């Protein structure tokens, strides 16, 4: 088992990166400006790329170097750039009305992390992995899941919703680098490409939304009920 054989240095590097990524999702949760979301997302993706590379180095999975490079290029550069173009076109620099104010959403997000920790703790205890990096990886994975869904539920601007989805994906990707570094390479590469297609599709739909529905706020999209 890879997780139990890590040296203290590797374990602390992994923990540091995982926690820093979690903090960056709080940055997204607590800010108004769409542009800040993007910077935080880009930074998070870079951290994940560094994580992939260091898992590849310390746990001896050389194929992860390729994943690290692709993550950096796709998630770290291309996706933020594409989204930045969408934001520029939108001319909506900030989230207009908040269903949940940033300060309150930070509190809810923190509660989510506590819940994720409880779940992760139970699972790791069951698997005899208590006290290893697995607890942290699971916690970060589940918390980013919860934070992503929180953003999806509480934000209404189209771009924020896309970012909510991307946080969900980042969480899974981050956790899987630590938990299952041996996952087939093909799969990870395909998921990266898939993400790119997703964002392009979203971009096109946002353009349709502006042109044909006249709004990009999900609050004003309420013609279909019942």
């Amino acid at each position, binding site marked *: *088992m*890879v997780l139990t054989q890590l040296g203290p240095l590797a374990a602390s590097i992994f923990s540091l990166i995982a926690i820093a990524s979690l903090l960056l999702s709080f940055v997204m949760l607590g800010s108004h400006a769409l542009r800040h979301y993007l910077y935080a997302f880009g930074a998070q993706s870079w951290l994940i790329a560094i994580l992939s590379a260091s898992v590849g180095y310390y746990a001896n999975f050389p194929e992860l170097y390729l994943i690290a490079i692709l993550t950096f290029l796709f998630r770290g550069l291309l996706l933020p750039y594409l989204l930045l173009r969408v934001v520029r076109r939108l001319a909506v620099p900030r989230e207009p009305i908040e269903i949940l104010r940033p300060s309150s959403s930070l509190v809810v997000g923190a509660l989510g992390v506590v819940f994720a920790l409880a779940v992760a703790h*139970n*699972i790791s205890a*069951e*698997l005899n992995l208590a006290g290893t990096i697995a607890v942290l990886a699971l916690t970060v*994975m589940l918390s980013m*899941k919860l934070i*992503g*869904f929180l953003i*999806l539920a509480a934000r209404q601007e*189209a771009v924020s*919703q896309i970012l*909510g*989805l991307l946080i*969900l*994906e980042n969480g*899974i990707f981050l*956790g*899987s680098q630590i*938990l*299952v*570094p*041996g*996952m*087939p390479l*093909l*799969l990870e590469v*395909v*998921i990266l490409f*898939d993400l790119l*297609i*997703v964002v392009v*599709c*979203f971009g*096109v*739909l946002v353009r*349709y*939304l502006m042109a*044909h*529905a*006249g709004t990009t706020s*999900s609050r004003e*999209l309420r*013609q*279909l009920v*019942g």
Partner: protein
Amino acid sequence: MLSLALVTVLAPAAAILLIGVIRHPRFAEFLNLAAAAISFLSALPLPLLTAMRGPHVFWGGAITVDRLGAWVQLCTSIVYLLSSIYAVGYMRMLGEEERLPRFYALFAGFGLTTLVGPMMNNPGLYWIAIELTTLVSTFLVAFERAAEAIEAGWKYIIVVSGGISLALLGTVLSYWNGSFVLGPRYDMTWASLARAAPHIDPMLALLSFLLVLIGFGTKVGLAPMHTWLPDAHSEGPAPVSAMLSGALLNTAMIGIVRYLSLADRAGVGRVSHGVLIALGVFSLFVAALFIVRQEGVKRLMAYSSVEHMGVIALGFGFGGPFGVAGALYHMLNHSLNKSLMFFGAGNVMRSYGTKEIGRISRVGVHFPVMGALWLAGAVAITGAPPFGLFQAEFSTLRGGLATGEVFPVVAMAVLLIVIFIGFLNHFRIMYYESVASQAEEPRAVSTWCVAPMWCALVPLLLLGFWWPNALWNYFGTIAHVLGGAR
């Protein structure tokens, strides 16, 4: 066998390429239709071949042709063919000639991705296939570019992407769970996960099953994750609605079924089946509420899809030979029947120029043939004899009684009766109630739009009278392989 399975997916792929090269509406129409016909013809013998030669994996375990997958591929290719025939007539009515090549390229892409899903032997690649179906079909849903259509497309992609990201988490956790048994690096296939399943940690196995159930359940449209479904089904063009309902939902359902079988082997079958049954009953309940009070004709059909997915979930949830056979037979009949219903709804909607049930009147008088077909379909879809769905639902109920699930069986029976009354009441209004101010005569519909209705109704009637013995054996083997024992 491999070549046949490949032809089913290569035909639509070739069609996409050719449509991209030669952008001509008539030609695109023809290419898509030809691709659908080839897919259907090559998917038709697949169940027979798998029954004779057993399941096979190809290409180093990347592709599997097993009984369950072959069956779903057959159902999908039937819907793809029927809705391609229908699309020829329907899309000409929209007056979007120059955008037709793009529509048919997307439509063939939708057929391609739904046909690829069941063949994937790697749970991760299966997930990708399901994700791609969403991306392609979003643009089909939003094709008409009305504000409502775009809204439906947006809601669809957001809700479903969020939902199936949970399925990805479940997939990763399953792989992690297997790595305690098979080592950190192993091939991710259904077979290897099944091999590891008896030795993995049950709690983590249950957690991953629940995540996958919620994830793919969103795509299947099980309540309470069904919220995207009525919008997407009602706003897309009618052939797209038929594909969404008759093809896509089945393809997503087999993901749940395969993970359910893994959960069975991991010893957490009781809870897993229980949750699936609960979601099934809840879907029936929600569908019944919305069917009774529905005002839109296509939304009525959409909620009926929620109902039928609930019944299929119940069939697999009950398990055992009767439950599984009922669910699989239900898939085929629902694919045929729901296509018929959406075709009728699309015809009526176009010729009356409205989606509101209250403004559609005397369909039987204006359209004697098409009206009769649609009405027969309505009787069939509510599960009345002598049509195929009656047989399927009856077998599902028997499956429930055989496994001792009395409460869900009673709830299912009561809710089906409520839906029967509510659904047919809307048809009573559309057929026999006269509206005072009938502004103008409804427009006529083309033969392209009526012929596929015949092609759907005749087999439905046949399947209602005659459930071939070979199919029983086929389903029995699937039930056995899935390991319905709890």
